[in-house]
């Protein structure tokens, strides 16, 4: 994987889907240009006003865009904060290798945090259930990591169009010393004048992609030639059907029911997370253009493949109040 260092954006040999000539890429539309400038402004504001920021790297498409924007925001300096991945130990293997290659290619400090207590307790998505697994490995893991390194601001790639309760989140979202989000007590966010003040132990979650839609993200990836995990593109992959979702058998830890046999299907992923909790979609989309076309014709939402959102009514809001991103 090669990363373009600046203006000389070259095609990428390893990811055939991205091997688009620079000339062939569409220019940034005024709309994307505006979103890009807004995200850059937000990132610089954080770098200037917080003592110890960190960028949460979830390895997904939104994170890929966020990393790219951070490189733009501080150029020719390097982004003045590390990347951090809260690893649940159940991510797709391709995500982990992509993560490590990305950090290496960009020469960017990467902190990987695993909730070892959770591992010791044997928490996993099959025996513990998705709700407990997410709570312990993701939410608790994130809080542990933020506390351990004393970060006072954490960038996340969440977009407001993803989910109802996220639509009401601020760009600068205040967290109490115990990482709680109080949706009834949010600071009004006026113009682009962000109130970055926090008390001792408190922190801020910052969402530079708040105003981006899923379509914006893919169009930006195409326009800028940003590498993404190959799982987003259709390929033959071994899957089993569970509760209506196509789950990829990514390693031998996946318990199969008696008689259950993984089948090779041509699938891709619209969002990425823990492999046992992420449903694949049947697709022939092997290029970015295919993905955009598929997206425009799609009748289901992006988070539909996420098992954790459907656990219970308002599950996302509850998770967010507890400190989930």
């Amino acid at each position, binding site marked *: 994987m090669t990363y373009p260092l*600046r*203006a000389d954006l070259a095609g990428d040999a390893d990811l055939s889907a991205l091997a688009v000539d620079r000339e062939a890429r569409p220019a940034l*539309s*005024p*709309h*994307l240009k*505006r979103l*890009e*400038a807004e995200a*850059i*402004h937000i990132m*610089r*504001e954080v*770098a*200037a006003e917080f003592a110890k920021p960190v960028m949460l790297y979830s390895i997904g498409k939104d994170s890929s865009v966020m990393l790219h924007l951070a*490189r*733009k*925001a*501080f*150029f*020719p*300096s*390097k982004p003045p904060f590390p990347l951090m991945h809260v690893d649940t130990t159940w991510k797709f293997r391709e995500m982990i290798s992509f993560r490590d290659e990305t950090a290496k290619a960009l020469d960017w400090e990467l902190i990987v945090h695993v909730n070892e207590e959770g591992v010791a307790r044997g928490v996993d998505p099959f025996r513990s259930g998705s709700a407990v697994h997410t709570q312990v490995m993701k939410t608790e893991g994130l809080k542990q990591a933020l506390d351990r390194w004393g970060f006072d601001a954490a960038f996340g790639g969440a977009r*407001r*169009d993803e989910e*109802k*309760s*996220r*639509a*009401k989140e601020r760009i600068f979202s205040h967290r109490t010393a115990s990482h709680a989000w109080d*949706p*009834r007590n*949010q*600071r*009004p*966010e*006026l*113009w*682009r*004048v962000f*109130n970055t*003040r*926090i*008390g001792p132990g408190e922190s801020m979650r910052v969402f530079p992609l*708040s*105003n981006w*839609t899923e*379509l914006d993200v893919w169009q930006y990836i195409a326009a800028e030639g940003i590498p993404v995990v190959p799982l987003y593109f259709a390929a033959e992959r071994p899957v089993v059907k569970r509760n209506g979702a196509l789950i990829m058998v990514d390693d031998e830890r996946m318990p199969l029911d008696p008689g259950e046999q993984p089948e090779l299907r041509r699938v891709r992923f619209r969002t990425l997370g823990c492999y046992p909790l992420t449903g694949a979609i049947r697709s022939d989309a092997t290029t970015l253009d295919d993905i*955009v*076309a598929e997206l*425009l*014709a*799609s*009748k*289901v*939402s992006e988070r539909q493949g996420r098992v954790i959102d459907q656990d219970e*009514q*308002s599950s996302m*809001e*509850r998770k967010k109040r507890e400190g989930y991103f």
Partner: protein
Amino acid sequence: MAVLSLARAADAHAADLLPADRGLLRFITCGSVDDGKSTLIGRLLFETHAVFDDQLVALEADSRRVGTTGDDIDFALLVDGLEQEREQGITIDVAHRYFSTPRRSFIVADTPGHEQYTRNMATGASNAELAIILVDARKGLLTQTRRHSLIAALMGIRHIVVAINKIDLVGYDEARFRTLTADYARLAEGLGFASIAPIPLSARFGDNVSTASAATPWYEGPTLLGHLETVDVEETGVRTGFRFPVQWVNRPDQSFRGFSGTVAGGTIAVGDAVVTAVSGHQSRIARIVTFDGDLERASAGDAVTLVLADEIDVPRGDVLVTPRERPSVASRLSADIVWMGEDLAVAGRSYLLKIGTRTVPARISAIDHTLDVETLGITPAVSLGLNAIGQVEIETLVPIAFDAYADNRATGAFILIDRFTHATVAAGLAREARGATNVHRHGFDVDRDARAALKRQRPLAIWLTGLPGSGKSTIANLLERKLHALGRHTAVLDGDSLRQGLNADLGFDAAARAENVRRAAEVARLMVDAGLIVICAFVSPFRDDRANARARFADGDFLEVFVDAPLEVCAERDPKGLYAGAREGRIATFTGVGQAYEPPLSPDVHLDAAGAEAHALAEQLLAVVERRITGAAGNSEDSAAL
């Protein structure tokens, strides 16, 4: 459910949904509780295919469970995101929604109508170009309609849609529509809107939302969506020259020094002359740097990094402008504010003011008047409560650069932040400078760092605070002797000596004490600018006053030293006989007896003045001071350090 299949049957080709130009319109919806805002947005999302099948399935289930529309889909549930709202049936916060049509992309801020949440409407309006004001056809115009129109106008929104909703419930009555349209025209008189479009509609049944309704044949105007797609909001309203608030000083290594930020008005090109608005340094643009290569010019909205031809210091918060089109630079200004705090706004209280990338201590020095939303009239006021709109005078601790909000939203908008809770308590819109307006500082070539370099020291203000008799003057004297012996250039400012000269006109009440500290800090700052190490010994009993003193200095130039001795020890020592005088009632406002002393919560140095001799304390302090003043003169990145 019939409605669903009908809309889905109208599915456009995928390619048609990709906006051709992706021009963007940001708008807000506002109205009273139950006017049907959320329903209208839900309807717009549904009719522009921004709702997916799985969301519709969830919506149908929700509608049956908690809906208020019988067997029909309750579109409001799509939008009312938070749990509590679904249960209470009201929107309590701003929600952002995204949809697009072949002609345009839209960002909607759904803002609450409930009176106590007016701050959210101002929030939504601050980033919007158009407002949809909902009016329930049965109820007509309400106080809220007037308030929302006023806020929209105040916040700089120039385009209004008057959505006369629930037209089905008045039998699609044309006369009713005409009456409300005329009512609104009267209400909006003098608010300066560029366009007002009244549209009769039913959000629940979709009349005139995206398709013209057969039930209103008397209405010949566009549908709501048709209007939103075509309304021209191009006129940006920026009437200032080039503005570039410096956001982040970009220094990857010694060879590169750039200033990163977003252009907030006008355009700039390589070679153009620029000046720092606050500090007055002049230079030219050498490069306009971006990740995608250098640019020849940059204009409003571009996030870039500027490299100047000369090595001048431009701290975050200063504004690069062109020399001939300067903003106001002042520390007194009049402004409109929308009050959002739980506590009343009263003259005299201290806040943090953030404008552009600059944050400075400020206070509301006077409340001129409040605006009555019923009459749009002006009433004198001494305080402003939650949701009040008023005109005030603001005093900032140091001068700030700004434009009138009417001339430039980006450089005329500010917020006030509570210094203790950190809540955003006001949205502010600058009007004009008061007092000395056309004073533009000249940037002198021999600066603080140059003067200090000649003295081979780093200047520093050492601020000793503590009760009378705690030993401040004694320690100051000993410390200066030690520094002097080491060849340092020093000065001492002492409360008593200042009160005999510069501050002879001041008494001892809280306001006079604040002014005493302000003058002392300002003199100390001038001395630090001269390259000196200044030892200041002042009781300075109030935290706010000391915070204001610190705020006059760059980061690292101010050392707060708490000379901590218990009251009994000080009273026992009583070197000037003051405690005795206070006890006998001869001195009315004496700190420690008649007036409180607020000890520093986190001083830079804490001296236990009861537990050690003055010589030992001075040695202890000297060790800290020596570390600060040796080495190269420090580089202050933000002179408004807080």
